[in-house]
């Protein structure tokens, strides 16, 4: 299946500048309350303004071009605890010339491996 969501934007700035903002300044563009370290296998945790959270793991860090993580949202309120489907978010940076950088983001459903597989990998 193709990516479900794809969005892009062109930014006035070098690919290095944009990479730095993408990976080090998530609190300024993703959500105010973000905890993440842009290293493969590290957790990403976001608290959204509506009180829900999204949690996941960083999967790809390839400076200055590719940053990806897999996450799922979690709501814990009067309706009980609900957990969303896991999705994979990937940001890809391209040099667009004339000091500009194109940022393309995709978000697609990314089911976690079946439990027996996950267990066998741990074993």
């Amino acid at each position, binding site marked *: *299946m193709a990516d*479900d*969501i794809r*969005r*892009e*934007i062109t*930014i*006035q*700035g070098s690919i290095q*500048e*944009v990479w730095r*903002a*993408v990976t080090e*300044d998530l609190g*300024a*563009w*993703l959500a105010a309350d973000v905890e993440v370290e842009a290293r493969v296998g590290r957790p990403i945790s976001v608290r959204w303004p509506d009180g829900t959270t999204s949690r996941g793991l960083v999967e790809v860090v390839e400076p200055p071009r590719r940053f990806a993580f897999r996450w799922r949202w979690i709501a814990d309120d009067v309706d009980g605890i609900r957990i969303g*489907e896991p999705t994979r978010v990937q940001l890809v940076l391209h040099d667009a010339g004339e000091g500009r950088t194109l*940022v393309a*983001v995709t*978000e697609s*459903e990314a*089911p976690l491996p079946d439990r027996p597989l996950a267990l066998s990998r741990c074993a």
Partner: protein
Amino acid sequence: MTDDRPVDRIFAALADPTRRAVIRKLSEGPATVGGLAEDLPVTRQAVAKHLAQLEDAGLVDSTADGRRRTYRLTPGPLAKAMDWMVDVGGEWDERLRALKRVVERGR
């Protein structure tokens, strides 16, 4: 089939052009396998198989009247897939605009 990845199953069901043609026909109103097969360039057996997959994905349901089974669209799941694409896409538009502001302000 389990019910744990509804959006995934909906998109998979919609990935096939014949199944999309079936959905287009059903959007005009309920129909039988025979009725659909008359309007589409595939056999009754193929139509029945595609309908079963669409039913699995929750996009179509059917009622039996004696030996005659009528299929119709269930609008909920399609709307759900559309909502998901529009909502999540809109969120990313906002985040990318915020990223642009961050970089361009810092220059």
